[in-house]
């Protein structure tokens, strides 16, 4: 009897906990998703109608015009092209170089392994700062060029450490038996270690690709004058600041472009910019979870 009552009491508290937790999670999901879904609804809604407000999760007057307008803007097309290019080239370069470096410093017999490691770990904590870096890039001729997106940040100590941690987990016996068969380090790297490192390569590729896709500051700082190297995020930023500065100029735009308003254009551009990542990331979860846990173990 006593036993029974206690169990019932616990499960009552348990039920209350579950309900509260459920409510918390639902609230969390709403707060996370609503702003994105709202932007999506506005992007499919007729511009002038959207100014009246009251659009939440579904467009009131459906139109594709915002998207057709966005996809015809030259600067956005250039931005998209450069962004795709820098994401692909930047990711490939970063992956190859970080993998080579991680391979070098994870060789137990390599005489300089420790010093090379230290050389890179220091860069995580000490850096010249914005102005000296800016002047360096300028004197190297990296300003007003595409290279500034993919060369300077190519090797990063963090990504190197993530790969290194993973490589250290591969049994030495594999390398030793390959060496007995007469394989050099190049063969070991390409034929033995790299195929085993596919998961961690995917992780680092994901980190770099997201970083490249979302970058805007380098475009603003180094390529402000070269519109041919503009990026999607930077163009989006210009759209945003022009809207928040002159939201009343909607009328002027309306006359020239029909029912398009800055707000609806911006919503469509935002969706276009986030779409690739939002579609891809759910399928890559296991990779970034591994990456974060590997990155946590630094020593």
């Amino acid at each position, binding site marked *: 009897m006593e036993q029974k009552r206690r169990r019932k009491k*616990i499960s009552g*508290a*348990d039920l209350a*906990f*579950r309900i509260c937790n459920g409510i*918390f*999670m639902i609230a*969390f*999901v709403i707060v*996370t*998703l609503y*702003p*994105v879904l*709202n932007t999506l609804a506005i992007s499919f809604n007729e511009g002038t109608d959207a100014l009246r*407000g009251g659009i*939440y999760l579904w467009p009131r007057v459906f139109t594709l015009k915002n998207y057709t307008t966005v996809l015809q803007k030259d600067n956005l097309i250039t931005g998209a092209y450069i962004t795709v290019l820098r994401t692909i080239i930047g990711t490939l370069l970063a992956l190859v*170089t970080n993998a080579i*470096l991680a391979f*070098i410093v994870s*060789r137990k*017999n*390599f005489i*300089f392994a420790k010093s*090379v490691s230290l*050389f*890179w770990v220091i860069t995580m*904590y*000490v*850096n*010249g*700062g*914005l*102005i*000296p*870096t*800016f*002047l*360096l890039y300028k004197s190297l001729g990296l300003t007003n060029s595409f290279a500034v997106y993919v060369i300077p940040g190519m090797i990063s100590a963090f990504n190197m450490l993530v790969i290194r941690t993973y490589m250290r987990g591969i049994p030495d016996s594999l390398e030793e038996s390959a060496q007995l068969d007469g394989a050099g*380090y190049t063969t070991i790297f390409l034929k033995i270690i790299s195929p085993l490192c596919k998961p961690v390569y995917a992780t680092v590729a994901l980190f770099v690709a*997201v970083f490249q896709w*979302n*970058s805007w500051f380098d475009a603003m*700082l180094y390529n402000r004058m070269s519109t041919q190297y503009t990026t999607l*995020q930077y163009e*989006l*930023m210009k759209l*945003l600041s022009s809207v*928040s500065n002159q939201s009343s100029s909607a009328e002027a735009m309306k006359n020239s472009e029909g029912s398009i308003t800055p*707000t609806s254009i*911006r919503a469509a551009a*935002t969706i276009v*910019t*986030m779409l690739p990542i*939002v579609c891809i*990331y*759910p399928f890559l*979860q296991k990779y970034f*979870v591994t990456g974060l*846990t590997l990155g*946590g173990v630094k020593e």
Partner: protein
Amino acid sequence: MKTKKLSKIEFKHQRVLIVWAAIICLYGFIFYYVPLVGWLMAFQNYKPVLGVFKSEFIGLDKFKFLFEDESFIRVIRNTFAMGIINLVCTFVMAILFAILLNEIKTKGSKKVVQTISYLPHFLSWIIVTGILHDALSGSGIINELLMNFHIISKPIDFFAHEGYFWPIVAFANVWKETGWNAIIYLAAITSIDPSLYEAAAIDGAGRWAKIKHVTLPGIKPTIMILLLMNVGNILNAGFEIQYLLGNGLVQKVSQTIDIYVLKWGISQADYSLGTAAGIFKSVVSIGLILVFNNIAKRHGEERLF
């Protein structure tokens, strides 16, 4: 004699490693170490035509200017304040979220919530600040809700009042990073020995008691390590969002050291002053990292014995 010969063979064998290491370190030297030479500019009246090696040295004048500049003092305060507020808020929320998510026993819904929780991390600050502008504008959802519940009678202009800026920044950081930061705590929670929960259940512990006496102590080492690692990075936590959300009306509370560097160093082209402000930030950062790494180490030792 024998070892020397061996190392010679080894050396030949390792030649390819040495060559690659040299190339990569040359790259690292140019892009990470050469800028440090630029620190000299902070002690000079730097003129681009003369360069770092010929410009006139003026000692600590630029630093003197910095610390007599009221706006720089304010910028330091803003950077620290927002750094600490963000750190505390994102930490508490990530831990809370990880613990509560772990309590969901239906696998499907847990997975769905977790997947959704990562989403904001993958959005750029440009997009996040755009969304915030919409949500907090005069006709945005927040004002609409507040008016519908009769909490306010006319829309609040959130971006025009200094008092709202820090909370907005903190909220944005929490919104963007909670799910992402929770990943590492969830991993830590999964590695807690299940028999501890069983033992607690036998002792009659309910959910709260289990969280308090098993889960929290179980992830405490992870919390401590991450906290100490992040405290050192407080000063690095303030650029993009403040730059994108700030405006003339709130600049007294919105500007951070990085924005100050950008404003003086790039826009006003006072490279020396910008560098001096950057050095101040770097030195304080490194100091914080060293101090807290030391504390972390000592803490670790205490745990060992």
